[in-house]
């Protein structure tokens, strides 16, 4: 409690009282950008999740360590075939204006996000719900959607088919309730500070665009007495160096990202504040497997993958805690034990020999060098990795043309198949292997390289129809094995989350989704 708090000065002026404001525990949190909106149906960024997830609570919610715990729902039953979920809502669930949170608010919210008029870009996360896709496409009426209020406190959700990760997904903001009575009154303006009503641990007080968002403890929250903070102030800071400087100056308590170049310095100077943890994401290069590209030959893909020294990239080029990746699904994903590239155990010499041999078999050699275009989106780190990879391919006689473009152009082009090898990355939408592996299914939009293997698709299909979690995991691991043997992509490293957390705080627990609700945070007195 010795730290100066930003809000104190203005409160003192406003009230003329010294005693109570000084007791106020205010968390000052640097988020990575200005939220596009605070309407849970109109957002898609992690920095928006930081704020909106404090303001709202779904049927289930995240504990400090990211595990799912009951939220608005106090208990639930799942039908034998895994397609019908019946939730009992807690009696004391209330909106911040004191109105009860009812099953109807959830029905209203699900219908709203799936209404094309809402133009929610993330609506597809709810596609497991029965008829959701048809409703979004306008082919079915919104009351055919698989969600109904049996009574005020009982909610039934019906799925298209058994979806083992569905319960986890209910903690996501796409599945938050919205206050029907307020949305109906104010329309799209309901999420403005003067109108917004929410059901989470905090409620919105003020939002000064590009400056600060203030939320105070919601007295109507069912667990309000266990919330330690009185107030949370979110500062949108895009520039990571600025976030670091403000953290060092004591102007913020948590920075949700720090500049990677400062990692060494931070480890030496602020070791107790640096929080680096495995993150639900994979950094990889997509191979274009379409006809007419050298990378349509699996031997070429394998050779290129063999030659990339992942330990050098993570250890020497980046040096910010990332782990080399020999898999496509990150290692800590729930209910999953995945496959590895078969050469992971070989030493560099053996890898290179095999790679040379493969290139020769594929018809490339000193007189017929392979010419490749390696595309990446503009970023200092992507550039460094691309240059290193190009150098690592040199011993194979590969001549690389590096080509960079800004992010919108990069992804628009590689989706058109306009590349040989392209930098890509994926952050999981939810903690399940399926979310990663589905990127390699035939005909999927984010399958940039158009990898197509019917056996892979069949395994994924069978996994989707399997309810037993272990059996399902095995099928998916088998699919991953296939994709790795085919060298569908070139995995490079596993992402990490990087936070700066003041040592005066309690309740911060690293987790793979990097979700930290302010509800669990407090000051160490």
């Amino acid at each position: 409690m010795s730290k100066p708090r930003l809000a104190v000065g203005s409160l003192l002026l406003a009230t003329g009282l010294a005693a109570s404001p000084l007791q106020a525990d205010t968390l000052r949190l640097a988020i990575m950008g200005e939220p596009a909106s605070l309407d849970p149906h109109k957002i898609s960024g992690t920095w928006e999740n930081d704020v909106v997830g404090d303001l709202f609570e779904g049927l289930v919610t995240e504990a400090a360590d990211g595990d799912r715990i009951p939220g608005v729902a106090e208990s639930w039953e799942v039908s034998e075939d895994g397609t019908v979920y019946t939730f009992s809502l807690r009696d004391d669930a209330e909106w911040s204006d004191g109105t009860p949170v009812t099953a109807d608010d959830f029905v209203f919210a699900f219908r709203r996000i799936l209404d094309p008029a809402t133009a929610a870009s993330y609506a597809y996360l709810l596609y497991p719900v029965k008829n959701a896709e048809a409703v979004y496409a306008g082919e079915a009426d919104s009351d055919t959607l698989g969600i109904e209020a049996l009574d005020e406190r009982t909610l039934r959700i019906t799925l298209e088919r058994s979806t083992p990760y569905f319960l986890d997904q209910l903690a996501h903001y796409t599945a938050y309730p919205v206050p029907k009575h307020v949305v109906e009154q104010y329309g799209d303006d309901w999420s403005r500070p003067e109108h917004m009503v929410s059901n989470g641990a905090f409620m919105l007080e003020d939002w000064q665009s590009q400056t600060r968002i203030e939320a105070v403890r919601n007295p109507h929250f069912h667990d309000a007495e266990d919330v330690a903070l009185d107030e949370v102030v979110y500062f949108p800071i895009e520039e990571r160096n600025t976030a670091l400087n403000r953290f060092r100056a004591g102007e913020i308590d948590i920075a949700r990202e720090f500049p990677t170049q400062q990692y060494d310095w931070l480890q030496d100077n602020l070791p107790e504040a640096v929080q680096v943890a495995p993150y639900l994401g994979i950094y990889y290069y997509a191979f274009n497997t379409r006809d007419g590209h050298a990378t349509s030959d699996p031997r070429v893909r394998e050779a290129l993958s063999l030659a990339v020294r992942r330990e050098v990239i993570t250890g020497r080029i980046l040096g910010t805690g990332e782990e080399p990746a020999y898999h496509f699904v990150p290692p800590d994903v729930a209910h999953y034990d995945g496959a590895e590239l078969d050469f992971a155990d070989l030493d560099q010499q053996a890898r290179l020999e095999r790679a040379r041999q493969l290139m020769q078999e594929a018809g490339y050699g000193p007189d017929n060098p392979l010419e490749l275009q390696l595309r990446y989106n503009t970023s200092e780190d992507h550039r460094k990795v691309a240059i290193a990879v190009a150098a690592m391919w040199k011993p194979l006689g590969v001549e690389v043309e590096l080509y960079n473009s800004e992010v919108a152009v990069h992804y628009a082009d590689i989706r058109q198949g306009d590349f040989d090898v392209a930098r890509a990355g994926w952050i999981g939408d939810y903690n399940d292997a399926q979310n990663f592996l589905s990127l390699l299914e035939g005909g999927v939009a984010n399958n940039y390289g158009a990898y197509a293997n019917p056996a892979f698709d069949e395994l994924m299909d069978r996994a989707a129809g399997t309810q037993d979690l272990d059996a399902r995991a095995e099928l998916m691991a088998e699919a991953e094995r296939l994709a790795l043997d085919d060298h569908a992509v070139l995995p490079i490293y596993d992402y990490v989350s990087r936070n700066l957390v003041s040592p005066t705080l309690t309740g911060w627990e690293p987790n793979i989704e990097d979700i930290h609700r302010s509800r669990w945070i407090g000051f160490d007195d």
Partner: protein
Amino acid sequence: MPGYILKRLLQAIPTLWIVITLSFFLMHLAPGGPFDGERQLPPEIEANLLATYHLDEPVWKQYLIYMGNLLQGDLGPSFKYKDFSVTELVAQGFPVSLELGLWAIGLALLIGLPLGVIAALKRNSTVDYLVMGAALAGVAIPNFVIAPLLALVFGVFLAWLPVGGWNDGQWQNLVLPVVALSIQQIAYIARMMRASMIEVLGSHFIRTARAKGLTEAEVIWRHALRPAMLPVVSYLGPAVAGIITGSVVIEQIFGIPGIGRYFVQAALNRDYTLVMGTVVFYGALIVLLNLLVDLTYSALDPQIRHDD
């Protein structure tokens, strides 16, 4: 004079129209769209988003829709900042950039003009070399170097001033960004003022003034200063427009909620309406400031008169 102003304002309309039209089509020529990103949206979702913002129409039709809305004063919704319209974003950000910019320009004039005059009067002396050397450094060192240095020294090490944030424009939050923003301007203005002053001091009417037996101070104050400021004034038009519409670098580094960042970010995000909104605003501002410059000219230089 009022007729002249009216004429100039009417002339601005075709200018702005050309600027808007060119920008609109150039922007749509750039590859990639507002909904292209790391994750491809399912086709029906993308189609729905495009339809919501009329992006599924042919470009000429989008242009007509845009111009129609613009004539009614509607700059449209931002694709990225969904809770705000472009008008609101500009209305929220501009006062901040304006305040910051006016302080910076004020500081630049306050320091730059006297420095230039002193350097000109003491031409080829140590003082002159010192001032011009410092000015050269000021021009040469980009503000993305100066700004983090200032933040580090005065914010982190000495902890005299906040590292960033706006805080409703408290003076503590203003100091570092204003200084960072004005250093280059001080340098430019000092160099320009020196060159122009030297030229004026060599002209006939100054010789006449000296021949009349006026003191050196009178010569400078009454005769040399005003004409010498003319180049600075014409530089100020575009410079003020540039500064009060915000600096993306300064706003990013100090976390200031101005509109400077939108110029770059909106373009990168392909936030079409926000790009156009900033173009319209910036264009109108430049036209207006150029008019002000011309009016100032006639006040400073008796040879220039704007008759109706």
